[in-house]
């Protein structure tokens, strides 16, 4: 076990833990945001740079600071390390600049986008970005592509975090989509319009931090803050069948995997659960899901939960 300090809070973690995961162990405001790192996926992280932190002291043996800000998701914690996240103005300024970079080519799409209200980029832009854009150049616009009946792809909103590629690589037996081109022209694509169809392919919707990949079966059905999330489960031969139902009245509009406090899915669910079970009678409802008070989704009022359960019996 090694000991390190993050924002003046001491924490003890196992050797080989990243700074980000050490901060997550503390929890709360000292956790750096992460747009590309995903603890459930191997090889994720190191792409978006929003998790940058300052290392004021590298380790107990070597007390020099690290020369540059480092990505906390891919830097290992050392014994005696001193890390600054929200206590360092330098980090906050850098993060603000990173958000501005992420938004450089991002369309002003939130009113149309199904991710709005649960979008990591929206949250970041709200907390760090300034209201105005400093660029006058045209934003890059990609040709849109149909990737099948279940998943809606909007390339303009993609922040190139590679999470969906890692998911497809590690969860499904055949990855059919990937990153095409380089730099400014990079885009998520299936190369030739090929549909992404695999039992677990729907999970790329959940891992996508933005609205580049959204659920086609619930497209434009409702805004997320008008729906109510319920924990539910069913007997599923393919996955463990525990999901969150997003309901409006007695209608199941959307099914997602439950997410933990870091915004990551607790487990992956299969496409049958996600896309095909849209009746209340398909599910056993366990109860309303707790939503953070700060989220716009919490504006919903939970009513009729007892009625739902009765109807099911």
């Amino acid at each position, binding site marked *: 076990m090694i000991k390190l300090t993050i924002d003046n809070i001491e924490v003890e973690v196992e050797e080989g833990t990243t700074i980000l995961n050490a901060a997550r162990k503390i929890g709360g405001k000292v956790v750096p945001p992460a747009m590309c790192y995903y603890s459930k996926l191997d090889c994720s992280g190191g792409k978006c740079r929003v998790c940058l932190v300052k290392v004021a002291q590298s380790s107990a043996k070597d007390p020099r600071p690290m020369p540059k800000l480092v990505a906390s998701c891919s830097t290992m914690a050392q014994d005696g390390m001193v890390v600054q996240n929200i206590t360092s103005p330098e980090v906050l300024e850098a993060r603000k600049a990173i958000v501005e970079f992420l938004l450089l080519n991002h*369309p*002003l799409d*939130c*009113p*149309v986008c199904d991710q*709005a209200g649960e979008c990591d980029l929206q949250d970041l832009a709200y907390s760090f970005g300034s209201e*105005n*854009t400093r*660029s*006058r*150049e*045209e*934003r890059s*616009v990609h040709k849109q592509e149909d990737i099948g009946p279940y998943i809606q792809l909007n390339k303009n909103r993609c922040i190139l975090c590679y999470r969906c590629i890692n998911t497809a690589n590690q969860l499904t037996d055949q990855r059919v989509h990937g990153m095409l081109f380089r730099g400014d022209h990079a885009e998520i694509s299936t190369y030739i319009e090929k549909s992404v169809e695999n039992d677990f392919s729907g999970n790329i919707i959940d891992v996508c931090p933005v609205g580049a990949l959204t659920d086609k079966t619930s*497209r*434009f*059905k*409702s*805004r997320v*803050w*008008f729906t109510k999330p319920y924990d539910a489960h069913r007997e599923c031969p393919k996955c463990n069948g525990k999901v969150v139902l997003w309901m409006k009245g007695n209608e199941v509009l959307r099914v997602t995997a439950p997410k933990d406090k870091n915004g990551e899915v607790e487990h992956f669910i299969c496409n049958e659960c996600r896309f095909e079970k849209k009746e209340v009678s398909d599910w056993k409802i366990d109860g309303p899901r707790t939503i953070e008070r700060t989220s*716009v989704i919490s*504006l919903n009022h939970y009513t009729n939960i007892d009625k739902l359960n009765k109807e099911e019996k």
Partner: protein
Amino acid sequence: MAMQTLTNRSKVVSNKKMTLWEKIYLPAIVKGLSITFFGHFFKRKVTFSYPDKQREFSPVYRGRHVLKRDDQGRERCTACGLCALACPAEAITIVAAERKPGEENLYREEKYAATYEINMLRCIFCGLCEEVCPKEAIFLTDQIVHSEYERPTFIYGKDKLVESVDNPVDVSKRQTKSVLEFKKNTGFAHNR
């Protein structure tokens, strides 16, 4: 403990018996009538005899809503739901739909409001929907909501709310400075 007074104008109520002069009330009535006669009778009236005479409306009067179209006659509203979220009276109901190929001249964005209803009986004309709208789609106008005999007729649908192509409603005076400033930025596709 005596209650602390908020102002120095409070008076202590007394229960003393009225004198005969006070009991006959006439002097008090005369006093009151004289205030009415000399103080108010010859003043300019503040009321209007509506509908013969009508008051002038302020340019930012908050009357019934209009859903605007853009320069090319396409509906601006993209059913983002922010107005319904902001509405303190929960008067707005929206159902969104996806724009089909070939409907680009009807709707501005790929999503549009298939149903847009405002319950004018619930609406308190606060103008929050107008303020929150990111697409400058909804504005309150200087028109008033007419009285009706039946309750359901107060639910205004798109047929009543969307402005007609030939007869647009002028809302230029209601646009805020920051909106006009933002519209100059041609970096965003919808400002071109």
